[in-house]
């Protein structure tokens, strides 16, 4: 790897950062959480339960109920009853006020939720505090206002709610994904059965408590915890009208197949393998920050992560030198420490997957680079990783790794990089870095992806539609276009 050794910047090797942990005292966690069905917290059938583990120190957090088919059936029945009798017939402006109230309650309890999110999922407190939790609240606040204005969203059409929505969410942004799913569904007059991921159920159950406190009528939101079998029970339930799923492309395909021949609508937010493209006229320092944010944000557990770096050949040396310097300054460690840049890998299972790809990459002949960083003894950790000398045919270039692993390729011409960037079954997101406006619009038009960040990366907002092309799924979440999956146009 071409790397200048002279005049190398020294980031902090002379001093250690003092620990700056966010206190967890304020957050209360019960020993055991039930299912939230029809406005009540209940045990799962037969008392089945599973534990959630803190991925940064292997400590037990709490037990969660494992919902059976019968439990899911009860939740769907409660949602159907609430849909018919309460939620779909309530004046829309009243519906709006409930959703506004949920937004406010999240804002009031933001710090508690941030701490719990980092404990349960392993993400740095800086991210859960500044991104996950505020965005979750903002999603509710944004969609609340739509509830009584839907006639302006679909000109020329009357709209009806879809009915009962089954929503299955991933472990990478547990509360935020719950908000993405719940807020538009509720605003459009649907009722919901929500299933959080089995490794990160904590903030979803806290959200259920908060929703209960908000006075939302019983059965409008039901939360069932569990693993794949619980999700399958939701997908296969005959009285569910809509499935909204965020997760892997593999599971998304199983769901799409499972609902074939039924009346169920679906929104799928699936995997990605985004190109992040750096031209020689880009502001290189900012681009390097964008590369770092693109792939190491949330340990790379991001479906839209900029995991394929394309650098124009004549600036490769400069970009890689600066990137490697910057990677050396990342602080990997305790998610609750406010200095932490990269937290814990969400689960042992995911760590195994990432390690598998690290091995595959080296066997394929790619050149691996990891900065020297001290990792905690307990928990699941993976240092920020760079693979150079990669090509389009490498598995680490083609397949979603979902970890802090970046592959680097070079290009010479605009057409070449467009071809390479689009040469993937995925199409969720892409990044472009150049100072030339006309080049940006050429690229952003030709990249086949649902979200394109130009001279920025990994930005999200409730007003901004998000979702994929091709095998990255269909349907949009966020913004005006995020309403469509939750209405029938008549």
């Amino acid at each position: 790897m071409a790397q200048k050794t002279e005049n190398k910047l020294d980031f902090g090797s002379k001093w250690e950062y003092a620990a700056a942990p966010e206190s967890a005292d304020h957050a209360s966690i019960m020993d055991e959480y039930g299912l939230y069905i029809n406005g009540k917290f209940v045990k799962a059938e037969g008392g089945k339960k599973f534990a959630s583990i803190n991925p940064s120190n292997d400590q037990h957090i709490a037990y969660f109920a494992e919902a059976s088919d019968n439990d899911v059936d009860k939740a769907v029945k409660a949602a159907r009853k609430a849909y018919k009798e309460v939620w779909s017939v309530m004046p829309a402006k009243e519906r709006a006020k409930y959703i506004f109230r949920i937004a406010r309650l999240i804002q009031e309890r933001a710090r508690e939720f941030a701490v719990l999110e980092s404990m349960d999922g392993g993400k740095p407190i800086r991210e859960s505090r500044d991104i996950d939790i505020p965005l979750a609240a903002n999603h509710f606040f944004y969609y609340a206002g739509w509830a009584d204005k839907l006639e302006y969203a679909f000109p020329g059409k009357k709209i009806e709610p879809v009915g009962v929505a089954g929503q299955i969410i991933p472990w990478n942004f547990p509360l935020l994904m719950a908000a993405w799913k719940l807020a538009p569904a509720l605003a459009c007059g649907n009722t919901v059965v929500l299933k959080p991921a089995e490794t990160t159920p904590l903030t979803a159950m806290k959200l259920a408590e908060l929703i209960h406190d908000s006075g939302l009528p019983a059965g409008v939101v039901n939360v069932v915890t569990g693993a794949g079998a619980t999700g399958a029970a939701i997908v296969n339930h005959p009285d569910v009208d809509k499935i909204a799923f965020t997760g892997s492309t593999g599971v998304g395909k199983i769901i799409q197949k499972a609902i074939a021949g039924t009346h169920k609508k679906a929104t799928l937010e699936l995997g990605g393998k985004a190109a992040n493209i750096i031209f020689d006229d880009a502001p290189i320092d900012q681009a390097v920050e964008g590369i770092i944010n693109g792939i190491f944000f949330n340990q790379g557990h991001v479906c839209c992560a900029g995991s394929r770096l394309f650098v124009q050949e004549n600036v490769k040396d400069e970009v890689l030198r600066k990137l490697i310097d910057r990677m050396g300054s990342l602080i990997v460690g305790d998610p609750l420490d406010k200095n932490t840049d990269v937290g814990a890998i969400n689960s042992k299972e995911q760590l195994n997957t990432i390690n598998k790809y690290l091995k595959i990459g080296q066997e394929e002949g790619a050149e691996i680079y990891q900065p020297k960083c001290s990792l905690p003894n307990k928990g699941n950790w993976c240092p920020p990783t760079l693979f150079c000398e990669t090509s389009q045919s490498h598995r680490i270039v083609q397949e979603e790794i979902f970890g802090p692993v970046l592959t680097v390729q070079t290009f010479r011409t605009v057409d070449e990089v467009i071809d390479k960037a689009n040469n993937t079954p995925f199409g969720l997101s892409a990044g472009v870095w150049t100072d030339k406006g006309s080049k940006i619009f050429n690229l952003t038009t030709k990249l086949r992806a649902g979200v394109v960040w130009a001279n920025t990366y990994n930005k999200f907002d409730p007003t901004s539609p998000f979702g994929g092309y091709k095998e990255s799924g269909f349907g949009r979440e966020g913004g005006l276009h995020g309403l469509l999956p939750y209405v029938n146009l008549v």
Partner: protein
Amino acid sequence: MSRLEVLKTYKIYIGGQFPRTESGRFYPVELKNGTVTNICLSSRKDLRNAVVAARNAFEGWSSRAAFNRSQILYRIAEMLEGRKAQFVEELVAVGASRAAATKEVEVSIDRCVYFAGWCDKFTQAFGSVNPVPSSHFNFSVHEPTGVVTIIAPESPSLLGLVSCIMPVIAGGNTCVILASENSPHVAVTFAEVLNSSDVPGGVVNILTGKEDELAEHFSSHMDVNATIYCREKHLKRIQENGALNVKRVLNWAKYDWNKQGEDPYLLLETQEVKTTWHPIENIAGAKSGY
């Protein structure tokens, strides 16, 4: 001695060319006057050739100016109007009343005009500039999904065909469409209209044949982005096959094309929403940020 009528050989339409099916197979459709027409029984290979043609045409068609697409769709209407009598005769020949046939052709012409008008308007009507709170310019526009396969309704054979093709190509997609099995003649003749309307080869590809044979391949081809299905028999199988590459599978059997075809939301069903972000230096109180 009376003049012998010249009969037409019915072909399929792939990449702007009129081949017979590569398989050499045919199926007979008898006209009301007793004439038997030998219709191409298209094969999986014909479909694969058509998808290649559609994929090759996609970049050019989708990057045309919307105004240009609009003019080309209007040109289709002009050509169809000029051949109105021929289409009426062909519909009558397979059993329609003259009045019904005339109406169907006229509505089909109007449908082309309707969607011609949408080409350069739907992105304005349904796109958005999104008021994100950070210092970014953020907007969402529609872009075509890609290559779309369509199994047209069995009837109305012309109006159903046109009603499916127009919203798909108005939005910049390219397509492969399977014509009505028992009344395929108008589809073949419509290909001749397309061919003289400045529609680039490969944008619309028209096959004739059996749904039972081709539904599987129309829905399972891995380089197809969406499948529109206007019949009922194979719906579940087509939806299952969609899962192979997360195809958008659209069930359009529910539409009465006489009453429901004029609808921009049909066009949006083969569109993707793309959202673009870019930083803005120093607006309002927000911080500029890369």
